[in-house]
């Protein structure tokens, strides 16, 4: 009997919470910025909203890659009760847009001049059907090479700028008794290394054809086979304890001087910073070998769901405006290790890696070479990305699979992934 009472009480409470979610002039924001620094950064946005008199209802769902958050979002959307804004990125914005669930931000985009403010590649991702439906929060660069200068010195090598130099340096580091390249054997990490190696060896034009446009000729061609062979060679630089290792554990290997290098996006900087290290002195950063003229981006964004209530719409527009305002951009990106989504900010507060990142971001946006990251869901739909992951990680872990076969599978992965 008492359990029944408890259940009734719980249901009543749940009902009460549901009832309050739909309050006017309030935004409910679903996100997975839950780690210490990120949560503080999200709090800045909350304070900015509250200072303007809007309510902020936090709907944080923990879980790094946002998988749990997406599951929650789907069930909310299916029950016809989506939050006002949600952390959705890349081609997924288009999928939600196609379902007709997103509202437009054209008002605030026109008023703030987003067309001029945002690089074209970024703006394209934020638009569905020509309408702005999402606002970019930050820009992560994926093609970074991190290094421990003490290990490099002990092995007598410099930061490599080409893939060949990376392999040479790797051998020297191995001889000096260190692990050359720290890596975690999880499919997304395999894919992260793969796309950086492909970009470094074959250039951004080929990257665009193969991993963004999914051109079957590029996916199954000679260049892809070369890229796959380079990728397999990086395995020789890794240690055998890597399967299943988390990326931050791999970063810790670089921090502790067990390993020389790591190929990882700039969120790795958070680990270096947390260990009390200074960029450029205690740890080094450079574009992944051969990719100094390219920039693989991973942009977090907040997409706005269609709402009927005028007050709530107003609050959404205010949220979108505040997200791109310098105060939030600076506070958030300092905490997150990324760079602001608007290139016109004063970067003096940021460290040397972030400054270089922003300079490269602007340069590649103008000259070409700014490409979306396949490994981080910016380039292709989730199903195709998953199918490519399967091929990449299977090839990487199977000592006997020839690169030609992997390239063929890559073509069929892109074709067969979906209806």
């Amino acid at each position, binding site marked *: 009997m008492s359990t029944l009472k408890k259940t009734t009480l719980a249901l009543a409470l749940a009902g009460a919470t549901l009832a309050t979610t739909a309050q006017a002039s309030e935004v409910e924001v679903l996100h997975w910025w839950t780690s210490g620094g990120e949560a503080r950064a999200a709090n800045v946005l909350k304070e900015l909203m509250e200072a303007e008199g809007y309510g902020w209802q936090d709907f944080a769902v923990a879980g790094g890659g946002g*998988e749990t958050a997406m599951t929650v979002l789907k069930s909310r959307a299916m029950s016809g009760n989506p939050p006002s804004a949600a952390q959705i990125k890349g081609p997924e914005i288009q999928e939600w847009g196609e379902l007709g669930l997103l509202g437009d931000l054209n008002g605030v985009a026109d008023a703030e001049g987003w067309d001029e403010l945002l690089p074209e590649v970024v703006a394209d991702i934020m638009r569905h059907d020509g309408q702005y439906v999402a606002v970019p929060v930050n820009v992560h660069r994926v093609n970074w090479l991190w290094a421990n200068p003490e290990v490099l010195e002990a092995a007598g090598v410099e930061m490599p700028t080409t893939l060949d130099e990376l392999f040479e340096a790797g051998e020297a580091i191995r001889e000096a008794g260190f692990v050359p390249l720290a890596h975690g054997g999880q499919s997304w990490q395999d894919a992260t290394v793969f796309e950086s190696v492909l970009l470094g060896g074959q250039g951004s034009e080929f990257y665009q054809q193969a991993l963004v446009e999914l051109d079957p000729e590029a996916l199954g061609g000679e260049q892809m086979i070369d890229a796959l062979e380079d990728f397999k060679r990086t395995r020789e630089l890794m240690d055998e304890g890597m399967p299943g290792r988390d990326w931050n554990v791999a970063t810790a290997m670089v921090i502790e001087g067990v390993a020389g290098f790591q190929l990882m996006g700039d969120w790795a900087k958070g680990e270096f910073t947390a260990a009390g290290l200074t960029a450029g002195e205690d740890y080094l950063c450079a574009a992944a070998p051969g990719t100094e003229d390219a920039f693989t981006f991973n942009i977090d964004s907040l997409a706005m769901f269609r709402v009927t209530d005028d007050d709530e719409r107003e609050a959404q527009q205010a949220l979108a405006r505040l997200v791109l305002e310098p105060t939030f951009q600076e506070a958030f990106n300092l905490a997150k290790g990324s760079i602001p989504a608007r290139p016109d900010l004063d970067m003096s507060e940021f460290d040397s890696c972030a400054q270089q990142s922003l300079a490269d971001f602007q340069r590649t946006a103008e000259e070409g070479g700014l490409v979306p990251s396949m490994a981080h869901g910016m380039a292709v739909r989730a199903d195709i990305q998953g199918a490519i992951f399967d091929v990449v*990680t299977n090839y990487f872990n199977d000592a006997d699979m020839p690169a030609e076969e992997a390239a063929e599978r890559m073509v069929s992965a892109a074709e067969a992934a*979906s209806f």
Partner: protein
Amino acid sequence: MRDSLPMKNTSATPLGAGAKRSTPSGGLQAWLPRLVLAPSVAISLFFVYGFMLWTFVLSLTSSRMLPSYDFVGFGQYARLMANERWWVASTNLMIFGVLFVVICLAIGSLLAILLDQKIRQEGALRTIYLYPMALSFIVTGVVWKWLLNPQLGIQAMVQGWGFESFRFDWIVDPDMAIYTLVIAAVWQASGFVMALFLAGLRGIDDSIIKAAQLDGASLPRIYLRVVMPCLRPVVFSAVMILAHIAIKSFDLVVALTGGGPGYATDLPATFMYAHAFTRAQIGLGSASAMLMLGGVLAILIPYLYSELRSRKHG
């Protein structure tokens, strides 16, 4: 409740049996069990069988991120059959399931027989063997992940003792990684099987064994020919429980290998989760879920049928 109701009945209606049946409280008594059971029947009909049906419907659609009702026939099943990863997952389940059930039964019954020899401290020993079952598969997975890691665990320890050439790196070898799942799962579940068998052994009438001894049968022969056949119902329940642990294994894979290296240790459950929830392919995920259900039924129905029929006859 059961005892008090009829008493009230008789005292309220002293007119005889015929009148007793027609009173409202008598009708209520007949309906009460059904009434009480109705909600749970309705709930399980809806949430178990209803959702099975819904999953089947979804498996016939082209649903991607959210369910849609654009029917494509058995197209998702055709895609699944062409999917290499699905075959890896299915083969893995066969290897894992068979080895897990067989080894657990073997170790469990052996331990039970050994413990049954009226030894000292049986209670303490039983607890030690049973304890792994108290852990969640996540804990088991993490512990074995460290033990099996070549740079942290058993291999590093033995090499540290001076056996430099010792290698035990199954967890990083795509061909052997599936057997690490078997090791961890057997470690966890065989103590439980032991407990089942021990209870069964204690239930066997001593006189049968004594009769066999009088006939001059050796101890191994008694266990093999007399005791084990008596334990058939125990084997039945143990296989049922182990088979369903094997088929629904998800947490162990996630914690121990994460499906890796590559997707070498993927099981249908992890395949289904990855496709339905993270890769926005609800249609394909539902199709794989239906095949899993089909696989379970294909094993369970004949077994249940033969066991229940033979029990009725015996």
